């Protein structure tokens, strides 16, 4: 069975820099070592190589932590914890996946564990079955004549993501921003795949509302 919804949008090249899309050899540290060399040395306990790996990956790890928590102080603490765990565990890195993928997964686990301790908003099937607060199909949301396609400013998108409820934000960041599949998210979050899809949909719907509202407000000012 074919499905042409995808055909309503031109295919966009996936430019995500993870999931094995960058090989280790392409990354060069400030000291001129390749990432692969830095990893091997860091496994042997070389502190400078570990610092080099920190330099290469700190932005991605920190951005992930910040997007998932929406809080700078928490994101800094979690980044610190993720790299401390990396130091302790780097000897177990087997090279069967890209290092960035492995580190990324480690960072995601650190964030999820932290959120769980805080009382991670439960993603339950009951939520997925809750009636929408707007009954019926969405024919009109905010300003009807605001068309989103081609109009999203990435800064506004970041802001909108930040203002999502935590449960929606986590799943949206994991799936749409970081590229995890629903089965991976379901395993990490301890929910069903169906629930993950449902929550992602709600997150996108909420973002749609926020972005349209933002566009409408901007249009009204001019």
């Amino acid at each position, binding site marked *: *069975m*074919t*499905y*042409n*919804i*995808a055909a*309503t*949008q031109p295919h*966009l090249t996936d*430019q*995500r*820099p993870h999931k094995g899309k960058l090989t280790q050899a392409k990354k060069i540290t400030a000291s001129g070592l390749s990432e692969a060399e830095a990893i091997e040395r860091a*496994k*042997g*306990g*070389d*502190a*400078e190589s570990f*610092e080099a790996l*920190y330099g290469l990956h*700190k*932005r*991605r790890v*920190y*951005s*992930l932590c*910040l997007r998932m928590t929406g809080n700078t102080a928490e*994101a*800094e603490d979690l*980044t*610190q914890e993720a*790299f*401390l765990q990396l*130091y*302790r565990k780097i*000897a177990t890195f087997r090279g069967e996946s890209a290092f960035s993928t492995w580190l990324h997964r480690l960072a995601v686990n650190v964030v999820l564990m932290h959120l769980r301790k805080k009382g991670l908003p439960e993603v339950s099937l009951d939520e997925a079955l809750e009636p929408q607060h707007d009954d019926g*199909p*969405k*024919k009109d949301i905010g300003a009807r004549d605001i*068309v*989103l*396609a*081609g109009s*999203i400013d*990435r800064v506004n*998108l*970041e802001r909108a*993501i930040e203002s999502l409820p935590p449960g929606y934000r986590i799943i949206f960041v994991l799936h*749409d*921003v970081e590229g995890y599949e629903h089965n991976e998210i379901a395993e990490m979050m301890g929910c069903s795949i*169906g629930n993950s*899809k449902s929550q*992602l*949909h*709600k997150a*996108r*719907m909420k*973002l*749609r509302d926020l*972005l349209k509202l933002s566009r409408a407000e901007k249009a009204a000012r001019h």
Partner: protein
Amino acid sequence: MGEDEEEMNCQQFQEVLPYIIESGGNEEEEAHLRSCPSCAELVRDLRYIAEQAKLLLPMHDPNPRVWNNIEQSLHQEGLLPEGRMSRQGHTMTYPTPTQSKSWTPIGWLMALAALTVFAAVLVNYKPSLPAAQSTAQNSSTQPAQLATDDQQVIGQMSQEDPGVRRAYEDGLREADAYISDAEQAVKLDPQDAVAQEELVEAHAQKEMLYQMAAARSLQ
């Protein structure tokens, strides 16, 4: 039952949309999408949001204090020597007395363990035990004499169930043996990270017993 030809409405389509937006839908769903501008716009917007999200690059660098804190934590854990000297070998190097200027926590633990063992040896060679301590011990055969601190801990449990007291005695002996074995292993190979971890674990076992005994005596 409804007719097969009954068309899907917007509500029905949007109910299944979360589950089909990525993987694809069936003919009926596709037909609705073709015929409904509102749902088509919705799908377009949602997919656009998802695609824009993919393009979001990591934008933020952490504050430099994050690295400072990481470094400090590693120093405190004894995983990184002072001055971030490069180390050799496959595992962490335990700073030798000639290299380090101050003792790491592992060093203090080992020193404490050595003192404890030394005290136990001294007690063994005392001409006679104080009466209170000898009566506090229920077991008629004592495979290994408890260290003085351990004996004090047991002494404070004189009001406890004899079975409980015996459990603590056995536990403390076991913990001392664990510490001793772990120290031996570290001595054999100071660079063996696992041996160091096991020494920490051995002390943690003893600490647990002390904490539980202390809680008991407070009660």
